[in-house]
């Protein structure tokens, strides 16, 4: 067994100011296996892999690769030793094109000169391999979240490696892309690559894992062979209580139409009509790149509408900016929390209260009120943080997502537009969020939810719209909502 280990972490200790993440943590990776790490938000998964990748140094403990201890790990060192990492949050160069993103730091050269052609060819090759439509010359900042993740995967795969680490790679993918990625991962592991895979989608875990390590509060609960594990047990280990992975929501009373858009176009969206009623959750589905985010941006006044008309409560309104939208009691939870949701350098207090300022016209605020509001919602969302004065950048990915949700729940809107609301959120917390959403619907609020998480979409939606190429191709009523139906319409007749 021992010589089978490609990687071994022993006695790992790691703390941040105010947070002790690991006390005495051990972990190992067998050659050629897919090892999944599961745990609640803030359990320490990302911290663990960042110590492997060299982004962080452990305070204590050893990391051994092929029985050789790595000292003073840095990303450069780790990459040199064949560890490739895809981080949970984007780590890209938004101003550069795809080729330059893929090879930054690992450029191909002929002598001292760059081998541009070689790099472009290799880019094309890897994009082909990933069945991606991205062009090598696209500026990465212009790509959507999903495409950006694809670029990061391509970047990791393009280098020769022994260990591949993926931290929630699928959170902005839809079903089709996820299946495709999982296939690739399986194939690579069969070819001898060792893989660490982190995901909150437990079904993915059961598809690809050879072993699973569960972390809770920085402690290893256990490492299982996949055969010895079922979903029930896994969740119980993670959360410490019983949670059903299939949430069943309570019904809410659906009444009048609250928001109605007629034949709107612009921002890559063509001729879309939709409405959502009070107490109704309208799901929007589609493949990555189908234009769902673009539609949401249009509804919220982020981007310019070329034509069409919007009515709220039966009255025509102009929504030219997010400010107008908020004044009309709408809110928009964007899919990219770091670039459009959070003020990373600011405290949770500032992050949670900023949008609610638009609610009242008084120019004054009381800092103590801000703290109270913030504490209320931070607590309600169960964000793991030493205090509400912690900077958002020091939270775990899932907890950051919860802060974004908290910001908008604090505004007490009537229409919530969610774009991938539960990205990176653990099963236990998801249930809490669904409960809050149900509560909102009960109070007569409306929700438009864009989601690539099929079970979530099916469990929560009253109706589902399916988008393709910037158009709505079908409306699926409650009784007909099921996975095959949605998928079939998303992909369209062509495949």
């Amino acid at each position, binding site marked *: 067994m021992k010589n089978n280990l490609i990687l071994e972490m022993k006695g790992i200790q790691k703390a941040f100011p105010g947070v002790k993440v690991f006390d005495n943590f051990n972990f190992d990776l067998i050659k050629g296996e897919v090892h999944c790490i599961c745990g609640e938000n803030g359990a320490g998964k990302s911290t663990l892999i960042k110590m492997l990748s060299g982004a962080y140094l452990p305070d204590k403990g050893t990391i051994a690769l092929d029985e050789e201890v790595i000292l003073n790990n840095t990303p450069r060192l780790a990459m040199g030793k064949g560890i490739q990492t895809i981080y949970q949050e984007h780590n890209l160069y938004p101003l550069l094109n795809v080729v330059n993103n893929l090879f930054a730091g690992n450029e191909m050269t002929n002598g001292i000169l760059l081998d541009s052609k070689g790099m472009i060819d290799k880019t094309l090759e890897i994009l082909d391999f990933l069945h991606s439509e991205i062009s090598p010359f696209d500026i990465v900042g212009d790509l959507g979240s999903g495409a950006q993740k694809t670029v990061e995967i391509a970047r990791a795969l393009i280098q020769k490696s022994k260990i591949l680490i993926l931290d929630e790679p699928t959170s902005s993918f839809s079903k089709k892309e996820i299946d495709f990625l999982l296939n690739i991962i399986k194939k690579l592991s069969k070819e001898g690559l060792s893989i660490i895979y982190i995901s909150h989608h437990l079904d993915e875990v059961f598809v690809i894992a050879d072993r699973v390590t569960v972390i809770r509060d920085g402690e290893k609960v256990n490492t299982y062979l996949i055969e010895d594990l079922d979903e029930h047990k896994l969740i119980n280990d993670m959360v410490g209580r019983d949670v059903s992975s299939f949430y069943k929501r309570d019904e809410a009373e659906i009444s009048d139409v609250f928001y109605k858009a007629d034949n709107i176009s612009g921002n890559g969206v063509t001729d879309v009509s939709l409405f959502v009623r009070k107490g109704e959750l309208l799901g929007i589905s589609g493949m990555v790149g189908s234009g769902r985010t673009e539609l949401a941006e249009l509804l919220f006044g982020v981007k310019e509408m070329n034509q069409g008309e919007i009515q709220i409560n039966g009255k025509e309104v102009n929504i030219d900016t997010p400010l107008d939208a908020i004044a009309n009691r709408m809110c928009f939870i964007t899919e990219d929390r770091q670039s459009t949701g959070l003020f990373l350098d600011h405290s949770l207090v500032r992050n949670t209260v900023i949008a609610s300022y638009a609610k009242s016209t008084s120019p*004054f605020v009381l800092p103590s009120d801000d703290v109270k509001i913030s504490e209320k919602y931070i*607590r309600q969302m169960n964000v793991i943080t030493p205090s509400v004065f912690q900077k958002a950048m020091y939270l775990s990915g899932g907890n950051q997502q919860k802060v974004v949700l908290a910001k908008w729940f604090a505004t007490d809107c009537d229409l919530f537009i969610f774009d991938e609301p539960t990205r990176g959120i653990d099963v236990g917390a998801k249930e809490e969020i669904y409960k809050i959403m149900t509560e909102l619907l009960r109070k007569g609020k409306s929700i438009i939810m864009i989601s690539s998480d099929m079970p979530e979409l099916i469990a929560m939606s009253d109706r589902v719209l399916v988008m393709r190429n910037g158009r709505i191709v079908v409306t699926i009523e409650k009784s007909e909502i099921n996975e095959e139906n949605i998928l079939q319409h998303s992909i369209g007749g062509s495949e």
Partner: protein
Amino acid sequence: MSNENSEQIARQTRNSFFQKMIQHENATMFFVLVLIIVIVFFVDFFSSGMVLSKAKFLSGLNISNVMLQVAVTGIMALGITLVMLMGDIDLSIGWMMCFVGTTSAYLLRNFGWSGWMIILAGVVISVFFQLLMGFIISRTKLESFIISLGFMSIYRGFTYLVTNGREITLGGNFKFLGKTSIKLTPTFKLYTPVLIFIILAILLWLIMKYTKFGRRIYAVGGNEKAAFLSGINVMNFKLMVFGISGLFMAIASMTQLSRLGTGNPLMGQGKEIDVIAAVVVGGTALSGGKGNIWGTVIGVILLGIISNALNILGVNPHYQYIMKGLLIILSVLVGYYSSVRKNNVKS
């Protein structure tokens, strides 16, 4: 776990006053300031043959001096702090002061306008031009560096046109803003400019703390896109901030004018560098979203004291430049190392 968590959150909020002081983001720079004062005091004391009455650095007279010297820079720095919190910069303020100051002097001299009227004129001109600049910057998102550099050159030309390069004296008028003072002890005077600076600093601090405006400025500087999506009309907000900064520039210009008693065409030349340096030393990031009013006040006083101390200690002017440069670098380095100790992260 959720219980534990909320308890922990509550605990942090109940921190003692002293702990809060130490953890405060201005604590380090304040400490550096105190350190410099103490060191200079001792150097002064020992070099005066250890006769306390001969050590002048902490004399009432010198303290009132330093405060008077930093007041105008301080008022400008308050305004620029807002602009920089938003992630913008303004290089035009020095020559704007020249332009506004000399124009007001011109109006007083040639049309006999009263003090209040020229103050009004100064405010109108400053705010108008800052709004114009703010309009361009907020609408185009072009680098405020280069736009404000353009305005700087324009103000310079305006100043020369108004003055033809010569001073416009006020003939002993318009003294109340700059030359009046309250005598607190026989040697310690509180000059009106200092009073204005203190009042504006407190006012701005209250605004930053207790108004939406104050909170939003951090949001705009911290993440413009997120701010836009959180319902802030970023363009108009920026416009407003430039307007407010214009108000501060007007007050600073009028105070400077009154102090000098003459509309000197070079009365503000080069001030932009002093002002921005003070704001940066005070902890405001050029990239925006980080910093605060007291930091700026500390930065202004720190740089003011460095200049003053070198003069008081009678350092040769050639060495003064070297010492000043070293002290600026050392101050921010000390600030850096103590903040690193507080939260040691690698990248």
